[in-house]
């Protein structure tokens, strides 16, 4: 008896000779799934307010630490009523975008316009898709925020990621934003009640502030960004915004990086 599990179920070496491992795969060893993201987008931030949700992400796609693509739109409209914000791998984002386009065409086949997918349905769908892919050990390397309105026309905001984890909160941020932007947003919307008091102007202001802080401190970020406001009236998506009123006065107080000798 051969007690090595890897030998079980195989032709016996002492009878048939050693197994020719080159038959196992066609060329370069076993099939490998995604091991790491390649071209990546950084944080997405979003906050609810009384009539809807504001969501933003910058327009950068990095290749490692190289700022490779500077006009990448990471906020995608769905069915004119929801917005998905994508962090992580850009090619997986493109795959998801095409997948969602197909889904929205399927929706358009139905003649009754009253029953289209809302943000809550969309988030459920995406989280199931992400979990399915991680269970195949072939994840889509993204963290997503879904912003829109739910079936009661109330603001809806939720996250899902490459593991299929789901989360919802009055404010959400992915990537570096979860460390840098989340505390700022929580000052204004610590809970649902406070979020329901926020005006649209204030929410936009908070998000812009977060984008600014992210640009100050996240080396994979950029000062051009997209921002979307989702209300009952629809989606107002602007894809070519520039950070304003930056102040780098704090910078000379930062010590201990790069070539500084102090």
């Amino acid at each position: 008896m051969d007690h090595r599990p890897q030998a079980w179920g195989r032709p016996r070496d002492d009878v048939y000779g050693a197994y020719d491992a080159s038959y196992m795969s066609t060329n370069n060893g076993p099939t490998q799934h995604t091991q790491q993201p390649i071209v990546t987008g950084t944080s997405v931030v979003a906050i609810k307010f009384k009539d809807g949700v504001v969501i933003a992400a910058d327009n950068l796609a990095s290749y490692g630490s190289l700022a490779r693509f500077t006009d990448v739109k990471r906020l995608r409209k769905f069915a004119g009523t929801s917005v998905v914000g994508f962090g992580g791998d850009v090619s997986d984002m493109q795959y998801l975008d095409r997948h969602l386009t197909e889904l929205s065409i399927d929706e358009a086949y139905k003649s009754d316009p009253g029953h289209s997918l809302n943000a809550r349905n969309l988030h459920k769908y995406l989280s199931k898709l992400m979990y399915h892919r991680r269970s195949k050990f072939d994840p889509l390397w993204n963290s997503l925020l879904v912003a829109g309105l739910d079936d009661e026309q109330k603001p809806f905001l939720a996250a899902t990621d490459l593991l299929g984890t789901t989360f919802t909160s009055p404010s959400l941020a992915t990537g570096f934003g979860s460390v840098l932007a989340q505390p700022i947003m929580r000052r204004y919307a610590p809970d649902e009640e406070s979020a329901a008091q926020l005006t649209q102007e204030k929410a936009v202001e908070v998000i812009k502030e977060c984008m600014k802080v992210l640009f100050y401190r996240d080396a994979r970020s950029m000062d051009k960004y997209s921002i979307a406001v989702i209300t009952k009236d629809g989606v107002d998506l602007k894809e070519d915004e520039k950070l304003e009123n930056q102040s780098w006065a704090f910078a000379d107080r930062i010590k201990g990086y790069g070539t500084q000798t102090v």
Partner: protein
Amino acid sequence: MTSIGTGYDLANSIFSPDGRNFQVEYAVKAVENGGTSIGIRAKDGVVLAVEKVITSKLLKPSANKRIATIDKHLGAVYSGMIPDGRHFVDRSRDEARSWRDTFKTPISTSDLASRMGGYLQAYTLYQSVRPFGITAIVGGFDSELEAPVDGEVGSGPSIGAGGKVEGKHGGPGLYMIEPSGMYWGYYGAATGKGRQAAKAELEKLNLAEGQLDLKQAVKEAARIIYVAQQDNKDKEFELEMTWISGANGPTKGRHEEVPKELMEEAERLAKKALEGDDEDDEKKDDDKMEL
């Protein structure tokens, strides 16, 4: 048809000695009994309309739609055998989807018409199948913006190799596909029982001049369906209408049902126009003759 009974009408793929395919001609007969469908290509969009004959009082009003969405920007309506039309729609959707899979961009109205023309034509070639008992009208609006790419993330270079080509893109498209597989592009298309009257009305609109706008086209479409229905007044019917505009128009480039308010307005005007005609008929029959 003098050659009926000579055996040449029994199977597809057999020509009669005088060069006709009788099976295709019989399919056209099936179309000629169906509820009238029309399409109008206006200067800024397309309208599709159909006279939906109510076959039973037990059917729910405004359910059982006859005009189908093929892709976001494409719609189709048909007259004739409804199950054949359903299959036509299924196949069109498959074609539109596979086009997107391959080229990562929406199929143009003309390309879809070409694909579906080819598909219908194949059903005139084999013993084992019969031609489609429908004539379909396909309407669409090809995006006038820079050719959209599905899943595109950036805008690409603004100049140089791979840069933008200036000029006019896209626009409205309207095609009618017959059981033989023949398809033409039209300014105004009509098929089904009331096609003769509908065509006469469409010709009066001078669509080739490109003056008629989408909202007017909706009202004209409603009126034409009502006019075309005059010949069999006893049958109850329901009007169904959809429209497609460009990205800056009311439907934002999508194929959608005409909104309720506009629909009601159009129907009211259509009925009024008919009543007006009736009064004219009674008062001055002679004038009408001269017209």
